[in-house]
């Protein structure tokens, strides 16, 4: 049973490993246009579909094991995370093959370069839509991991007892939760520009609104995400280091609490407070230059503490130089080098010289490829016996390390010296020592890539032929080793009684006091109910992907099929219709499964250590985590609007565009639906099912009326004497209309989504599906609905009154 469950997860890890092989960059023999696509897609794929996911795949496998959970908190959402991620990746890769090719504006997608004027064609649209799917997947995934870690720890596992890797996982997903909304917002604006003709990032040559600089808006939105993202990439690797170093030094980690405090400081305040160091040359005011110079240098303090603690742990212990430890040492050395370069870059003065040069490229490859990949390799070698039950070949591992380390430095050290060569050029004149240095770097790249063949062989060989490793080859104290390995080698089950196995191995005062059935046997008995082979997440993702691909390709050229010519637009349209159909069917199916209670968890509450969430139901926790990310999403969009308004020197007065009394009335309708929804909760808390149904219907009617009024309002705006449209010939009107439709439209979409859920809730209520003690969905929906109401409390005054 265990094996079957884990194979799903391991399969995901493997699929991700294959992505690794697929995403090797092509860096040579390319024309300029292809070179730009290659650079761009290399950056995007490596960061979003390889590095980060590899870390997350490890989370997926290890966090439940380490905290003693059977699975993640929301298994079907986990499947959704995976399929959305895959669909996004497919779209990004497929975009190479559509006419005009993939995105080519750099991974940073600077606007307006990445907009429809300078990067026309369906390819970039597809790439960016793929990114959106990936970002959606990340948001769903972070909610799931946070709920899992906070809520599904086994009894006796206090937060403070969690293994280091799980701690780092928690920090990483928290950073994801708050960083990704801003990139979703940023790309939403890009995509509406590309798909429905808004002009939010239009260059001044096309749309001249006095005071507006679209590139600055992009920089703010992108880097507010972008800098936290680099830590998101890095932290899983540091988690591996923190977790497994003790196995090779024979003693516990030094300064565990110092490390945790430092990561907390990095993740929460600091990483979100340094993004403008990517914008030193954009003409932001001098005060900001100083603030962000200092804040960036402050980052080195917690990182310094972490690195020093790692080093002390090794110095104090008796080191065994096994492959994982070698990779750890490598990661640390490379991180230190890269970090020092980062400190240079954090000075606005020096950055003036280095910005946009190969020095920057060298910097981030040292920290991202060096520290991150080496750290993750350490983890993969270390946990391979856990995943497969077999031991890898130690000498091959060492050879892999040595060649990689040499290859890496031969590749990136010359780039450090190339601080006078601009990045992202596809060819260059023979100036100074550029040719030699570039030549050396290319040789390094081949050495580095060659080394990866060794690890591929080693992994596969281990998987099928490796010698059995035994259940705990490293003699580790960490809880994940106390369950049987998941691979194909039959291993004797480990002792799982409280006296011997899992619990007994854990240090700490409370472990002795735990009694009752061992969590392992408990898990075993529960697992049989919990086989989540729902196909809904897969079809749902596929539906979204089809629809979006169709949208990106629309209208496209005519397609010639022997005698038959399909006129432009038909094929994409068909894709869109098919996509909507599949999507709708999945949603309905999903709801139907729930109404019929097809997926029931194990009866009763398994219990566990949940401080500080003992009193909070799992679903509510998940909902709040999700809402906190929604706060940032809507806030960012409203922020973009405020930003544009502050910058613009002229703006149409609201009364000249909108019907204020009508909007006020519609606002009252929405606010009243908030009241009826609160009453619905009140009713069911008393156990009044008929009351619940009545209030839900009232909410539905009010919500639909709100949308109906909105639609008629928009139709009026489209067709009035002076239409309020992004295509307006007056640039100020065009910009105002663009941001208005995007923000108000997104709010409307949330209302519509709410109405769909209401249909489900009404149906379930009518079948008597909710009772006084069992109506979590109602409570959660009320939270969502209230949130949508709050958003409108800002949208209304900002767009209609001020």
């Amino acid at each position, binding site marked *: 049973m265990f094996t079957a469950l884990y194979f799903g997860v391991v399969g995901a890890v493997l699929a991700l490993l294959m992505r690794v092989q697929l995403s090797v960059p092509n860096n040579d023999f390319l024309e300029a246009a292809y070179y730009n696509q290659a650079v761009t897609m290399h950056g995007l794929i490596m960061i979003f579909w390889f590095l980060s996911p590899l870390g997350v795949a490890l989370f997926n496998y290890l966090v439940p094991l380490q905290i003693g959970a059977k699975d993640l908190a929301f298994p079907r959402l986990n499947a959704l995370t995976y399929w959305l991620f895959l669909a996004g990746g497919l779209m990004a890769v497929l975009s190479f093959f559509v006419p005009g090719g993939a995105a080519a504006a750099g991974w940073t997608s600077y606007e307006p370069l990445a907009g429809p004027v300078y990067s026309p064609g369906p390819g970039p649209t597809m790439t960016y839509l793929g990114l959106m799917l990936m970002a959606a997947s990340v948001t769903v995934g972070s909610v799931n991991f946070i709920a899992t870690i906070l809520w599904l720890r086994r009894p006796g596992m206090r937060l403070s007892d969690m293994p280091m890797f799980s701690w780092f996982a928690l920090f990483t997903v928290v950073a994801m939760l*708050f960083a990704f909304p*801003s990139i979703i917002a940023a790309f939403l604006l890009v995509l509406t520009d590309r798909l429905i003709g808004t002009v939010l990032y239009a260059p001044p040559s096309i749309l001249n609104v006095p005071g507006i600089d679209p590139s*600055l808006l992009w920089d*703010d939105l992108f880097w*507010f995400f972008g800098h936290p993202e680099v830590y998101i990439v890095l932290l899983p690797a540091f988690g591996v280091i923190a977790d497994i170093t003790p196995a090779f030094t024979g003693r516990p980690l030094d300064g565990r609490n110092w490390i945790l405090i430092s990561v907390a400081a990095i993740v*929460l305040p600091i990483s979100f*407070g340094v993004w*403008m160091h990517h*914008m030193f040359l954009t*003409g*932001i*005011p001098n*005060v*900001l230059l100083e603030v962000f110079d200092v804040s960036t240098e402050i980052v080195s303090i917690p990182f310094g503490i972490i690195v020093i603690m790692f080093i002390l742990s090794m110095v104090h212990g008796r080191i065994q130089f096994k492959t994982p430890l070698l990779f750890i040492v490598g990661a640390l050395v490379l991180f230190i080098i890269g970090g020092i370069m980062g400190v240079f870059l954090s000075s606005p003065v020096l950055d003036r010289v280095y910005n946009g040069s190969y020095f920057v490229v060298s910097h981030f490859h040292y920290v991202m490829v060096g520290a991150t990949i080496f750290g993750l390799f350490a983890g993969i070698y270390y946990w391979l016996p856990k995943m497969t039950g077999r031991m890898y070949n130690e000498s091959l591992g060492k050879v892999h390390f040595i060649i990689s380390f040499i290859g890496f430095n031969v590749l990136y050290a010359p780039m450090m010296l190339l601080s006078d060569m601009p990045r992202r050029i596809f060819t260059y004149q023979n100036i100074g020592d550029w040719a030699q240095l570039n030549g050396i770097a290319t040789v390094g790249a081949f050495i580095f890539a060659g080394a990866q063949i060794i690890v591929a062989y080693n992994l596969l060989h281990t998987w099928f032929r490796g010698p059995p490793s035994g259940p705990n080859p490293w003699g580790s104290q960490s809880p994940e080793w106390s369950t049987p390995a998941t691979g194909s080698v039959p291993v004797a089950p480990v002792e799982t009684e409280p006296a011997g196995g899992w619990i007994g191995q854990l240090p700490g005062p409370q472990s002795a006091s735990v009694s009752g059935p061992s969590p392992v046997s408990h898990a075993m008995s529960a697992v049989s109910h919990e086989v989540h082979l729902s196909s809904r997440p897969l079809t749902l993702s596929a539906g979204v992907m089809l629809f979006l691909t169709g949208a990106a390709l629309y209208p496209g050229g005519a397609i010639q099929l022997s005698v038959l010519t399909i006129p432009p637009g038909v094929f994409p349209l068909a894709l869109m219709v098919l996509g909507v159909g599949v999507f709708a069917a999945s949603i309905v199916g999903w709801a139907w499964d729930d109404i019929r209670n097809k997926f029931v968890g194990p009866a009763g509450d398994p219990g566990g250590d949940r401080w*500080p*969430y003992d009193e*909070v139901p799992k679903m*509510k*926790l998940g909902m*709040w*985590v999700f*809402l*906190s*990310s*929604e*706060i*940032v999403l809507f*806030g*960012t969009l409203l*922020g973009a609007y*405020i*930003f544009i308004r*502050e910058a613009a020197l002229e703006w149409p007065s609201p*009364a000249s565009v909108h019907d*204020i*009394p009508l909007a*006020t009335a519609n*606002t*009252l309708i929405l*606010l*009243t639906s*908030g*009241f009826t*929804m*609160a*009453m619905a909760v*009140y009713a069911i808390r008393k156990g009044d099912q008929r009351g619940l149904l009545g209030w839900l219907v009232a909410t539905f009617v009010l919500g639909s009326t709100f949308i109906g009024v909105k639609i008629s309002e928009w139709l009026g705006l489209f067709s009035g004497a002076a239409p309020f449209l992004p295509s307006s010939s007056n640039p100020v009107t065009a910009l105002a209309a663009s941001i208005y439709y995007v923000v108000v439209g997104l709010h409307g979409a949330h209302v519509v989504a709410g109405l769909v859920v209401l249909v489900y809730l009404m149906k379930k209520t009518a079948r008597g599906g909710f009772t006084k003690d069992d109506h979590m969905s109602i409570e959660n929906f*009320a*939270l969502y609905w*209230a*949130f949508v*109401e*709050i958003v409108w*409390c*800002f949208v*209304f*005054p*900002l767009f209609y*009154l*001020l």
Partner: protein
Amino acid sequence: MKTSTIAGVWAYMVVAVLTETATFYYVTNVTAQTVVISLLALSQATAVAIFYMQLKDEPGSIRIFALVGVMFLSALLIAMVASLG
């Protein structure tokens, strides 16, 4: 939560929106208008969060999600507007 609280919050929301619109029509000083309307909007959002989203009954461990979200958001907004110079 009592029905009177639920209805009270709703009544406040209605009054606040009507005041906003009235401010729009009758207060001509732009700064005063902006300040009044923004404060009303903030108070509405707070009321919904505290009562309809029941933050008043939730433990701090739930409130923190709302707080952290708002905190990140404020940081972003302040710096964004500042970067306009």
